């Protein structure tokens, strides 16, 4: 299933490219500009836009969805290194906890 623009201005998206998680995350990023509704559809998702602010373009939402998808894919590969760095940074900043006697 390829990406298609529907008559109502919504989009039909291929699950091979976008995960539901990425589409939801992108919807949060645009929550101050447009109301996004996601529905499962055969082989993918239907995305509907309502109450769009002036200047909003569905393509921007798709760019963000791809960005989020790349981030999720990268997390699958790099999460170990990323987790070690973040944990080290946070623990060092917090300092050592005093042991209770």
């Amino acid at each position, binding site marked *: 299933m390829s990406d298609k623009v529907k008559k109502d201005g919504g989009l039909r998206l291929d699950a091979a490219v976008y995960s539901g998680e990425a589409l939801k995350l992108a919807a949060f990023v645009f929550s101050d*500009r447009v109301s996004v509704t996601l529905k499962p559809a055969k082989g993918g998702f239907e995305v509907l836009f309502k109450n769009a602010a002036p200047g909003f373009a569905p393509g921007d939402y798709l760019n963000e969805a791809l960005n989020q998808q790349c981030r999720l894919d990268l997390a699958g590969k790099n999460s170990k290194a*990323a987790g070690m760095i973040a944990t*080290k940074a946070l623990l060092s*900043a*917090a300092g050592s906890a005093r042991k209770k006697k």
Partner: protein
Amino acid sequence: MAQKKAAKKTSAAAAVPPQLFWRREGADFLVTNDFGHYAWLKKKDFDALAAGKVGEKHPLFAGLSAKGFVRDRLDFDSLAAKWRSKNAYLNTGPGLHILVLTLKCNHKCLYCQAAAGGAGARDTDMTPATARACVDFAFKSSNPGITIEFQGGEPLLNWPALVAAVKHARSRAKAAGKELKLALVSNFSLMTEEKARFLMEHEVSVCTSLDGPADLHNKNRCFSGGNSHAVTLKWLKYFQKKNADQPAGIRVFKPSALLTVSRYSLSRHKEIIDEYVKAGLEDIFIRPLAPIGYARNLWDKIGYEAGDFAAFYLKSLDYILKLNRSGVVLKEKMASMMLDKIINSRDPGYLDARCPCGAAIGQIAYNYNGDLYTCDEGRMVGWEGDEVFKVGNVFRDSYRKVMASDATRACVVSSNLEAQPDCARCVYKPYCGVCPVYNYEVQGSLWGDMASNDRCGLFKGIFGALFARLKGPGSEALLKKWVEK
């Protein structure tokens, strides 16, 4: 020795190169790795490296293997030491503590991000008691050395809080055995001999803004009470003279200045740099504008594209190097900090280019009322009504609670380049950092989208200019001098 051992163990492995980052620049390729090493390669050499065909007989073998680019010659001890040194900040807590003594200001700068109110504004002064509480909080940091920076607004509009904080910090440092640096960022318009003496006696370094020649400076930094440029120069000279004289019993630091580049500056790089030289300054910190705070409302007048800034920066860098060749001592500060990482594998303490960024874990901004933010930019977002970057309050929250707050953790996770698409494979990753506040303000999420992120474009422009000059033997030697150990 370590290299030989490693070679024995892995000699049977395929000779493909270890993880490296690369970028094509014209006919040449820049390669870097996580240890912070870099090399410029011709296409045939890059192809050979990528194909794992840089063998012992290759002319670049010795250089590339010493830098960790050849898989069966990795000296893990040395490379790990490099990585540790470059990322030393991962072992400590916040070192920079920004005390916003007041939101009042007697200037109305075009690009102000500080959410400053007029000089007569009420209820935005930090009380001396709050100032002391902020100092106490700063001393809870796990960092063995801390810097307390006094900002505003114009901090000299709240002299009693400044005096209280300075005296308390000095006495706490003695008791705690921590290294303490104190710094004041001021427009100097309210400076007096008496205040200057107090600052010098308590070893408070001073930093001001100088945007270039008088007409440009005064256009950017509107001061209804007089000539901002003249006042700035007067006190710069004053502190420079005191620094040269070093009065008995007092240690006086060299004063420094910051340049904020507005659209009006873009065509005047020579005049601006000449003004710094004329003012006797040995550093110039060329800082781009960010569309945050007051600057965002005027962005169509004073803002610019990342490419415009990169071009300005490149011209400025070349002009400074030209002056260096004729004997003038002048360094660009952002370049110096980046070069410190690139050449010395050292952490220069530049909080904007860290992985993760310095939000809360490297710096804390203390608002006039004791509220704590990830950084000063985060505080400005709070002033606009969105408290997403607030991490606590000095009176209500413990240090550990602040370090474990939602905002702190979110900023650490979202600014981790290992988890950022584009950044994770970028050739400049070993030296760069992203800003969750910028991403949030400009792109709507802490993560941002680097493909269309202007700050990313701006940093790429700066790194591009630096690496291009590190390729030329003449400019390379000059740049290396800037960060000589």
